[in-house]
């Protein structure tokens, strides 16, 4: 009984917080827009009994919204551009995050806790405020331009805000800890005598890094990339605040469909497809985690 309960809890959790909302979104995606509350038809009518109501409801479902999405190239472009932005910013986050994680793992033991704190510290203030702060830094009159101008490195202010560059900066900044922490965990576990063994067997420092450190950090790198890529793909706040009008991301499209156009069915369809796209990397991520666990158990 107790065991059953323990097993049931996470499943109930999953059911309540993921599957039910998803079912609702899925259901709306099969509906049509309407000027009503809620703003779609059909709605469930249980006057002739629950089963009859549901049967009646399902019979009115259609794939019109999905057809609409394939027809309008705005959506495909938004998906593709989101994929591109998410992939590129994951790559940039890796470029920045790996050296940080490496430095942390190589730092003296007594420093590591402090460095870890510094990485996590930004999470203690609101994400929105931190993104707003970047507007102040990146704007034409912003701190960055002021600094560069006063140093004489540039003659005219750079336009960074409201371009894709600002989006990349925002994503790399926001998701950096998700990249650093798993890589750090992998590197910290690594036995330093492995590098000595590699050198003893004839490796230079550089080749020991590529032949030993990198393969051992691989699982951390994979985990970090997924942790950045998956949320970045659906990111909405950063492109809206920093990206301006020329940044097309599916998260922004979704938001506009829901709140500007009040077209819940199309917005739901966009969300369902986004989820379908994300399922592939999520499954791959789970596989990687599972393999890691198995290796550790052995």
């Amino acid at each position, binding site marked *: 009984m107790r065991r059953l309960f323990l097993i049931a809890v996470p499943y109930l959790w999953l059911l309540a917080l993921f599957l039910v909302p998803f079912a609702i979104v899925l259901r709306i995606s099969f509906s049509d827009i309407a000027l009503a509350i809620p703003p779609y038809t059909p709605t469930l009518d249980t006057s002739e009994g629950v089963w009859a109501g549901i049967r009646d409801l399902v019979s009115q479902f259609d794939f019109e919204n999905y057809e609409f999405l394939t027809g309008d190239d705005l959506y495909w472009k938004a998906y593709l551009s989101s994929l591109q932005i998410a992939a590129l910013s994951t790559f940039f986050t890796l470029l920045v995050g790996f050296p940080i994680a490496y430095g942390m793992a190589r730092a003296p033991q007594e420093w590591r806790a402090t460095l870890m704190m510094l990485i996590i510290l930004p999470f203690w203030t609101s994400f929105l405020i931190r993104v707003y702060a970047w507007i102040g830094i990146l704007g034409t009159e912003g701190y960055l331009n002021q600094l560069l101008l006063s140093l004489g490195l540039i003659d005219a202010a750079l336009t960074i805000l409201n371009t894709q560059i600002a989006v990349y900066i925002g994503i790399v900044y926001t998701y950096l800890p998700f990249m650093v922490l798993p890589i750090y965990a992998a590197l910290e576990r690594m*036995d330093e*005598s*492995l590098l*000595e*063994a*590699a*050198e*003893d*067997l*004839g*490796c*230079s420092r550089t*080749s020991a890094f590529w*032949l*030993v450190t990198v*393969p*051992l950090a*691989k699982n951390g790198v994979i985990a970090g990339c997924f942790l950045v890529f998956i949320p970045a793909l659906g990111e909405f706040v950063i492109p809206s605040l920093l990206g301006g009008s020329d940044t097309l991301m599916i998260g922004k499209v979704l938001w506009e469909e829901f709140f500007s156009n009040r077209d819940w069915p199309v917005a739901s369809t966009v969300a369902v497809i986004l989820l379908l796209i994300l399922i592939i990397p999520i499954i791959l991520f789970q596989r990687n985690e599972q393999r890691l666990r198995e*290796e550790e158990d*052995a």
Partner: protein
Amino acid sequence: MASSADKVFAPWEDAYEQPLIRFKNVTKRFGDFTAIDDITLDIYTREFFALLGPSGCGKTTLMRMLAGFEKPTTGSTTLDNKDLANVPANRRPVNMMFQSYALFPHLSVYDNIAFGLKRSKMPKGEIPDRVEEMLRLTRLQKFAKRKPHQISGGQRQRVALARSLAKAPKLLLLDEPLGALDKKLRQDTQFELMDIQEKTGTTFVIVTHDQEEAMTVASRVAVMDAGVIVQVATPGAIYETPNSVYVADFIGDVNLMPGYAKISGSRAVITWAEGQPPIYSKTDLTAGTKCTFAIRPEKVSISEEEPGEDVNKVQGKVLDIAYLGNLSTYHVELPDGKVIKAQVANERRIANRRFTWEDPVWLSWTDTAGVVLTK
């Protein structure tokens, strides 16, 4: 005497022989802790040099200086008369087997062994043969494809050994290479090591906690204590003529009898216990001094009747008997409470042994059986 053809291997006695490794006044400090304290030591080509000493005395540190992972704080090390100070680890013709094994967890057993070969000048085609040879030697053929976490502790140790042997280096450093192996496999591997050494002429420096192992394989043994080398000598000399109480006590079983020596001719007359006759022992001492008489239990004879001819004899009663199968050690208590151990071969079955608990017995030894130690 041995004919000149099979001359005994003893390059350290030959004044013209150049040592392969030379430590000259080497000191190594970690912060204000001195791990190696002013060591001067020569190790010769084709030696099988064993380092013995208690945990933390600096054995691994000494090895790491040879491998190139630690720099001496002061003093110099040379290999083949070349100063090692500025030669990085990957340029030294030295391989080390790590005490912690340091196997690459992401590589299979095969790739671990091949790792060093792939970084060497060995032609690609010859690598598989060499790896196979190492796998055969360490009896790991069946495990070639496994990862280090999929094999047992003893197997891991053998992979580490195979990996360090693969490149056939000029100098091989083995830090407790056989500790995790069972006795049978350990003996086999010891003979394999000696065989490899015969064939390749590699010089071995080996750390071991197993005295029997040091005695079996080593050309010379160095006994260390707290960063200092107390004695370097052949296994026989270390055992028979230790230079100090520390060495005598560290290697094997020993009876230690502290006392005071007076010199009479070439013999010391040692007063060591009230009511006991003095001990007579041959010695090089020239003046009377405080000393410790040390004698191995197997050099003490035990008998029911008073022995006639032996110089030294004491009477006591059997306090305890330790049965070791082929040998028995009798702990004999003297009237004043001191205990002396005597070891005899078990020629008869256990039920028929001559002495048992509480039996009065005589212990005796000649004047050349023990040593007089002043350190």
